């Protein structure tokens, strides 16, 4: 067992130990964990090199849609290591090299193919072009035997609940109780979501989160909720809704979904913090740190720096402390100091390390510190996962304090008929609120399907919801959302510095997009030199949000940063259009589909 494994995995009945090969060397892992977790647990943090600058890349998040790295698996290139679970004898290759020529021409690639001397010289361009094409670090396609195609499966239900966390489970239970046929889709190995990784008592709940989540799951299954795990709801096309499971690897299984109502309970996205060298392997999000620890028994590091003295940050620290991990919390605001292990008033951070983070240089008022760490966790802020709601056509707006949220009412209805949101996906903070919102959303689905009694129950719950919002002190924020839903008017407030920013200038080594190597400097230039401030244009000028993770990690940060430097409301900057599929689908799977089946 490696040094980072502190306990047995707690998930899955089939957590058997298997041996896989990584670059020819055998390592051990569990069948309940993805390649990402197994590699991390064995001390392998750098999986890949970045696209333009060949910088070492590890995963930032374990979420299958937050796909910033690829590995070669059993000869198949460009596989998502967070999507594939271990099987005996798996052969994984990571990429570690950085060609010398790239080092030499770095400044050319650095300027995103816009290098002036080459532009001016038309004769040189055809030669440069070949060089550029070859030096972009894209995986090479090879022909491989694609797995025998699994026929498309047609799934019909009254309600499809997207996401199987506490909000999603609560919605499914309520809807099922009122007689709806419910299909629950979740991309994890098992239902339960983030609360499954909480050994403490979440806000408003008087038992450990993992127990609460397990009980909900049990109840949902007992009530006959149909479940698809390791499956991603891919999106709404004009003529169909699609879900996809990347199994067998290299191919996959597709599901044509038809339902009368949808509850989007896809949770929230941890935003990466922006500071110098924030792309180094070993810098991860809270949800991954929690997941690794409480599901897979792997601690994220021995000396962990947590950015953000937020509920999530503090919760992670509590968990890690139980396993003798040294944690230190860094926060931007002042006044947190004095409490144990919080450094407050942090202005700037620089990460140090060659192919993994080894230390942080921290600047705070009148002081510079150096912290030796082996892991940095970003916990300053989250944003609702708006991918699916936005795709469906629900209105999205920025509400200060909540982020970009799907505008909804206290019954969790969005501006799209038949589409409801709940939990983190609606901008609510973690805890009991997720459960109650889920229940309301489930009841709302029952109401539009004319189920008796659902409306009265919803009325009662909505009252309780109102007082809970008050109790948690976010009723004024949520009221803004409800009001926007009612009036159709979205607030037009400017924002201060984004909470994720730990960087004083537009640095060339502070990354916004890990897929395409887009830095603060690139964004800043587009705003200040070209005068673009609308995210759609910035996206087209820089490529932000157009690569593998489809903007999951970069769009919100970009919008907030641009709003900040252009002194605009984030609602003016906007968030770029979301389109299907939410997760990439191999051509062999699509080619095997018959759409006219439904």
């Amino acid at each position, binding site marked *: 067992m490696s040094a980072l494994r502190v306990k047995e995995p707690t998930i899955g009945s089939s957590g058997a130990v298997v041996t896989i090969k990584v670059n020819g060397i055998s390592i051990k892992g569990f069948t309940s964990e993805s390649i990402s977790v197994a590699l991390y647990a064995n001390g392998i943090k750098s999986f890949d090199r970045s*696209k333009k600058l060949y910088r070492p890349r590890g995963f930032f998040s374990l979420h299958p849609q937050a796909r910033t790295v690829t590995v070669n698996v059993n000869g*198949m*290139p*460009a596989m998502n290591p967070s999507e594939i679970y271990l099987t005996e004898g798996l052969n994984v290759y990571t990429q570690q090299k950085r060609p010398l020529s790239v080092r030499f021409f770095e400044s050319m690639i650095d300027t995103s*193919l*816009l*290098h*002036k001397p*080459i*532009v*001016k010289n*038309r004769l040189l*361009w*055809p030669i440069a*072009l070949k060089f*550029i*094409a*070859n030096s*972009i670090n*894209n*995986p*090479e*396609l*090879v*022909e*491989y035997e*694609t797995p025998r195609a699994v026929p498309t499966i047609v799934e019909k239900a009254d309600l499809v609940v997207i996401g199987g966390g506490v909000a999603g489970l609560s919605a499914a239970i309520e809807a099922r109780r009122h007689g709806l046929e419910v299909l629950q889709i979740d991309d994890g190995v098992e239902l339960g979501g983030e609360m499954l990784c909480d050994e403490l008592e979440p806000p408003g709940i008087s038992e450990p989160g993992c127990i609460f989540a397990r009980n909900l799951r049990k109840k949902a299954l007992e009530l006959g909720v149909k479940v698809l795990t390791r499956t991603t709801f891919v999106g709404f*096309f*004009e*003529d*169909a809704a*699609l879900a996809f499971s990347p199994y067998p690897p*290299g191919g996959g299984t597709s599901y*044509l979904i038809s339902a009368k109502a949808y509850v989007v309970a896809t949770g929230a996205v941890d935003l990466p913090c922006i500071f110098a060298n924030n792309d180094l392997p070993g810098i991860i999000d809270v949800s991954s740190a929690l997941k690794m620890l409480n599901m897979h028994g792997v601690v994220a590091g021995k000396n962990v720096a947590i950015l953000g003295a937020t509920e999530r940050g503090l919760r992670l620290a509590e968990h890690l402390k139980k396993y003798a991990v040294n944690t230190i919390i860094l926060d931007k605001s002042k006044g947190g100091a004095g409490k144990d292990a919080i450094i407050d008033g942090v202005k700037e951070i620089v990460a140090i390390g060659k192919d993994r983070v080894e230390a942080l240089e921290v600047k705070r008022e009148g002081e510079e510190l150096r912290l030796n760490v082996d892991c940095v966790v970003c916990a300053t802020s989250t944003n609702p996962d708006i991918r699916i709601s936005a795709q469906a056509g629900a209105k999205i707006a920025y509400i200060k304090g909540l982020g970009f949220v799907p505008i909804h009412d206290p019954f969790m209805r969005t501006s799209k008929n038949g589409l409801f949101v709940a939990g983190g996906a609606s901008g609510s903070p973690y805890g009991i609120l997720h459960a109650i919102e889920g229940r309301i959303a489930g009841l709302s689905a029952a109401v539009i399907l004319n189920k008796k009694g659902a409306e009265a129950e919803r009325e009662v719950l909505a009252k309780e919801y109102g007082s809970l919002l008050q109790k948690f002190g976010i009723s004024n924020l949520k009221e803004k959302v409800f009001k926007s839903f009612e009036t159709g008017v979205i607030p037009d407030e400017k924002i201060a510095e984004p909470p994720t920013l730990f960087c004083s200038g537009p640095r060339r080594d502070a990354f916004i997009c890990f897929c395409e190597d887009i830095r603060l400097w690139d964004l800043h230039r587009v705003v200040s030199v*070209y005068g*673009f401030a*609308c995210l*759609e*244009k910035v996206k*087209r*000028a820089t*490529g932000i949000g*157009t*690569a*593998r993770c*489809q903007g999951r990690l970069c769009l919100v940060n970009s919008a907030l940063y641009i709003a900040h430097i252009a002194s605009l409301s984030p609602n003016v900057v906007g968030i770029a259009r979301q*389109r*299907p*599929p939410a997760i*990439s*689908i*191999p*051509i*062999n799977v*699509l*080619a095997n*589909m*018959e*759409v*006219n089946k439904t």
Partner: protein
Amino acid sequence: MRVVIVGSGIMGLSSAYNLAKLGVKDIVILEKEYLSYGSTVRSASRFRVHFWTEENSKFAIESKKIMVKLSSITGWNMIITTGGYLWLLFTEEQVKAFREKNKMWERLGIPGEFLSPSEIKEKYPYIYTDDVLEGFFGPQNGSCFHNYVAFGYYKAAAKLGAKLFERSPVERVLVENNKVVGVMLPNGKVEADVVLLTAGAWTDELLRGLGIELPTEPERKEMALTESYRYFIEPLVIDFGTSAYVGQALKGEILGSIEVPVKSGLLPLENTLDFLVKWAKAVYKRFPVLRGAKIMRCWSGYYSMSADSSHIMGRDPDWPEGLYVAYGDSGHGFMMGPLIGKLLAKNILYGEVDELMRPFLPTRFKEGKLVPEKLVIG
């Protein structure tokens, strides 16, 4: 003199740039959404010189000359590649028709090359050719980066004084005494001496508001894009059997489209699974190496289809004075845009009708002098 340009796609922007270059100081570009919201940034950004009609081929040859120089003009790297277009032909008739046309293309100085299936295999080993009868390769054709073409034109025009107003949808063109006097926005009017309609697929509506009917209509087209892979597909490969096309951007994404039956009109800019599956099936067969490639995104845009599938530019003398159009590009307007702007600017300022432009005047429909373009892709 004030010129109001409605729409900030390539047509509007290249016209604005050329007008500004010829000295027009007061140019106002009105855009209903944001800079280049329309087809321009939704296109496959390919250019070619091979067209079925001589008029279009000649036009495209000259337009390409501007396109490849654009980087030096605007300072934005257009990332021009000339990997060629490869048409895969499956029937004797298709081959015969291309051989016939190649005589014309030879005469115009743009000969293509006929490749046997084994020659294709040798040059492009990743293409499945067992069912292919012959290939036609046009080495003069290529691609560029559409976003930078649009932004580059815009920046160059803005530098010369043209002004862009976004979120300014023109509701109608104002006419007094058979002369345009301005355009109407939701919050007021903008005066103008000349109004140039370059609103792409939305132009029909604006013309109809003036009682002008031209045989054009929007058609929604979808596109799909894979994740990035090492650059290897140099040409744009067009499967004449299925109508599918596939190409790769220098940055690595492989993109393409296929025709699916849709109603014409301004359908919502959504995507269908039907399209995605059909394209995937075509790619699966034609490019075995792409079977494991992953589709990352799809989007849609409009072709502004004209009755003869050729673009429309200039004005009809029967129209109100000062009214000009450039649209109806039928899916190949992006590549024609640079020359359209150049010729149109001269037309507007000096009344000059260039010989290359003459066949594309809007009067051709009532005069029955169509330019029937059969080589439409997608």
